[in-house]
């Protein structure tokens, strides 16, 4: 498959300012990628290339790091990120069944995004809320002691919000 040639066509003042604010420029790559993702939601190729030029390192190194760490996204994600915890405590209390129920409810598989761009479904590692197991997170909101029955209600809550927003 032919790859498109990526060029930097825009300026990224937020990244420039962040770079200038770093006390130690050594090891700046991961902080820069965190900042870029915070600004743009994910790491488009052009942004990766910009970071490479800014730090004076090969783009391959930026790509290598961006793909190594699971928190970095190379693709745009849904408006609401539904994360099901698959840590051990959640797993033994049935989080796999919750993930399956969500797959059925949203009609997508894990790691996919719904056609309307509203939801991305993923599993995450332990969020350290093992006392509430099993745990589902939507954005920053934590739902504890979830059962497969609760899934529809949780999804509806956000469908409702998205509806209000569009009105």
């Amino acid at each position, binding site marked *: 498959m032919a790859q498109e040639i990526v060029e930097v066509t825009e300026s990224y003042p937020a990244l420039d300012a962040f770079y200038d604010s770093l006390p130690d420029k050594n090891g700046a*790559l*991961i902080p820069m990628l965190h900042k870029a993702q915070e600004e743009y939601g994910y790491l488009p190729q052009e942004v990766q290339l910009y970071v490479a030029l800014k730090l004076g390192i090969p783009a391959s190194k930026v790509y290598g790091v961006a793909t190594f760490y699971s928190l*970095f996204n190379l693709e745009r994600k849904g408006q609401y990120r539904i994360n099901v915890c*698959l840590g*051990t405590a959640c797993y033994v209390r049935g989080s796999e069944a919750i993930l399956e129920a969500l797959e059925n409810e949203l009609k997508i598989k894990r790691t996919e995004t719904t056609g309307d761009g509203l939801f991305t479904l993923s599993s995450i*590692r332990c969020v*350290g809320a093992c*006392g509430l197991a099993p745990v589902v997170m939507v954005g920053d909101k934590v739902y504890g002691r979830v059962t497969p029955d609760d899934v529809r209600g949780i999804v509806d809550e956000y469908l409702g919000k998205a509806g209000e927003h569009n009105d």
Partner: protein
Amino acid sequence: MSSGTGQVRIALRNCGVIDPESIKDYIATDGYDALAKALFDMSPDEVVETVKKSGLRGRGGAGFPTGIKWETARRSESDIKYVLCNADEGDPGAFMDRSVLEGDPHCVLEAMAICGYAIGASQGIIYVRAEYPLAVKRLQIAIEQATDMGLLGDNILGSGFSFNVRLYFGAGAFVCGEETSLMNSVQGGRGEPRLKPPFPAVKGLWDKPTNINNVETYANVAQIIRNGWEWFRQFGTEKSPGTKVFALAGKVNNVGLVEVPMGTPLRVIIEDIGGGIRNNKKFKAAQTGGPSGGCIPAEHLDTPIEYESLISLGSMMGSGGMIVLDEDDCMVGISKFYLTFTAEESCGKCTPCRIGNVRLLEILDRITEGKGEEKDMDDLENLGNTIKDTALCGLGQSSPNPIISTLRYFSDEYKEHIYHKRCPAGSCSKLIGYKILPDKCTGCTVCARNCPVSCISGERKKVHVIDQERCIKCGVCFSKCRFKAIVRG
């Protein structure tokens, strides 16, 4: 947090007691006393000696003597040295470091400064998971407050010793909990491990001598300095002094953090502190050490917990996750769960871990799908031992432990899956199915209404039927039926 039978709080002494966002609260509970004592009453060598004599061992999992690390870093000659704190708590089911960082952040800063004084370092870095936003916030506040009060920064308390701490955020890679991977990550690279030796205390971050300890280890340091090594040794056992924090979770009645003296039997933690198994089920095993550990069966419940005893049982201390499993948990499924985790988190640098773990996982997949073969158990054991012997870092060297320990204690369960295509715990979905008993079904429609894939049909007050083709075996109908008309088998 329960403070029931047999608990002793050293690492967690302030958690839930003081306001973690107030340095005055910390100082009021003798905080930063130990730092002052070290700076004005002790030489760096005396500090190292005290930590050595205390017998404190790394609480991150491997149990390496902390004093030896400090001594090596102290003896390494260099203009720059680093003090690192490993707060990349990645074991699924473990949250003790998070609690310390959120509940008592200053105790970590104080210990790092003491370490800096002891080894001759003026820079400290805490590598903390980005998944712990509250811990990050509290650490930031704590660093600011300590710097404002002259307890961190230049010329601390007028002693001439300077020490700064900054935070570095992980980005979701389990292998970064391995110390050399963590250092590569701080340097902005992929978190791949380095060959040891040279050890970090000789050649670590940016190739400079570096002392790296875990959060819970640091949480013990200030009190050892303040109260003396003899005080610390009154807790725990000869070889494993002090206490250990466990994150008790899974099928016990009381979940949460417990801190007990080393040497406490597992039974005390699970039955007395944990309040026994939920829903009157039967205890099957305790999983310790996360993906690097193993499962301890009922016959070993009275073993005192310390580093060596857990290893001899085929498990390990690990960072302190303790997941209690009951009769409904399939031990082959649990192995598969951990192997899925390590196979995904393998950094890919060395072949035994990158490829070997995937092969192990494929065998487990087959077994849980009813396609197991006679030679599978031997293959699992042989390949597992090969990976343990040949992988580059601690992740690969311990990744087969969940399999090897379950093969040792629960071989009957493997055999049931392989020879009889049955999952005795009723957990492997490919090996179970749900059926409605016509003579018990009242046609109440509860199962049909709750089925997430709408594969149950039947008219009101008539017998219902499950479409086996579309059934995802989630078990919702089984748990919802009030007439015991749905059976699993």
